[in-house]
């Protein structure tokens, strides 16, 4: 594989996504921004959907690295979930242009399926965190919480800035729902 061309094409995304909408993006425009020949794009990715698939993997890698860095040394539980969520939201805002491209590219199953799998993986990790925080119904809570987290990310992406009121509502749900389901489980026992 032509690694330098691949790296240049992926690196060009950040600047280009700030200027060009997903629907306006073409292979020619991408190659021009990256300083790479069209034949090289064809050799590396073949088509734009494959490019978006690789770009999404790069986005997920960056996100994971950021979350691991921000939560290093923190014990499992609610605080670590909030730190990871804050880094998730911050990373989404910082990568707003690329994220908009990726959301639009989910019309392609090659992009949509890995995104869905990523959410499943986060759900499993979060379920473990919630169990460590002694929450009843940890898996169900994890799935609901991730849906809300993605909604907050979407709200902030459209606003182009942090929306603290949404983040507070998210923490409220995390704290209250964990407490409510645990109380319900204890009273049923």
């Amino acid at each position, binding site marked *: 594989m032509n690694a330098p061309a691949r790296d240049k094409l992926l690196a060009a995304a950040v600047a280009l996504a700030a200027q060009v909408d997903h629907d306006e993006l073409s292979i020619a425009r991408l190659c021009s921004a990256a300083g790479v020949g069209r034949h090289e794009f064809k050799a590396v990715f073949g088509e734009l959907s494959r490019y978006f698939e690789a770009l999404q993997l790069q986005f997920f890698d960056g996100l994971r690295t950021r979350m691991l860095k921000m939560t290093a040394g923190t014990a499992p539980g609610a605080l670590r979930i909030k730190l990871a969520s804050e880094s998730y939201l911050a990373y989404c805002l910082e990568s707003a242009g690329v994220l908009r491209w990726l959301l639009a590219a989910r019309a392609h199953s090659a992009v949509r399926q890995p995104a869905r799998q990523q959410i499943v993986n986060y759900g499993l990790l979060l379920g473990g965190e919630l169990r460590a925080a002694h929450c009843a*119904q940890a898996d*169900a809570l994890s799935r*609901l919480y991730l*849906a809300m987290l993605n909604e907050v990310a979407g709200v902030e992406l459209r606003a182009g800035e942090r929306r603290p009121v*949404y983040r507070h*509502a998210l923490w*409220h749900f995390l704290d*209250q729902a964990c407490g409510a*389901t645990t109380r*319900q489980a204890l009273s049923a026992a």
Partner: protein
Amino acid sequence: MSDVAIQKQKILGAARRLADRRGADFDAAAVAADAQLPPSAIGRHYADFNLLLCELLAQMYDEVRDLVTKLTLNMPSGPGRLQLALETYLQALLDRPGLRALARHLRFHPQGSQLIRQRVKGFNLMLQLELKSANWPDPAVAARLCTAALIETAVAESEAGRKLPAMRDTLIAYFTAGMA
């Protein structure tokens, strides 16, 4: 009713039968055959086949909304009404696998995505009013996030093909605790 309206009703009825059986996996020819109309009839009423599917999806969403409204209309606001509304909404979606399939199929179509957004907004507003009357902090914000969680529950139940009580109970317990 005019001949045009009768023919359109036949087309929508056929599309509905096919959606109930096959989700979004059917085409204009299948609709025409089921409606016992010539294939050209579909194109006379709908320039784009997806516009027919959008109209069908809107019809199915209306059924769900009407069902929730009918069952909760005379109840006082509070956790009981909210629980019944959520349970009815989720069950109505579970009973209509074709609705979920059509929504998935149309979510990237311009009219389809607009329709889905409108219907989500409608449910969001209903939830917002319930939370507001319970003096919930930032009801508009909470309603938006909880609507996302509710949609996720509907998706999970559609994938599982059955009720998922843990997800429903978690969401309802959150509201009940907050309204107590």
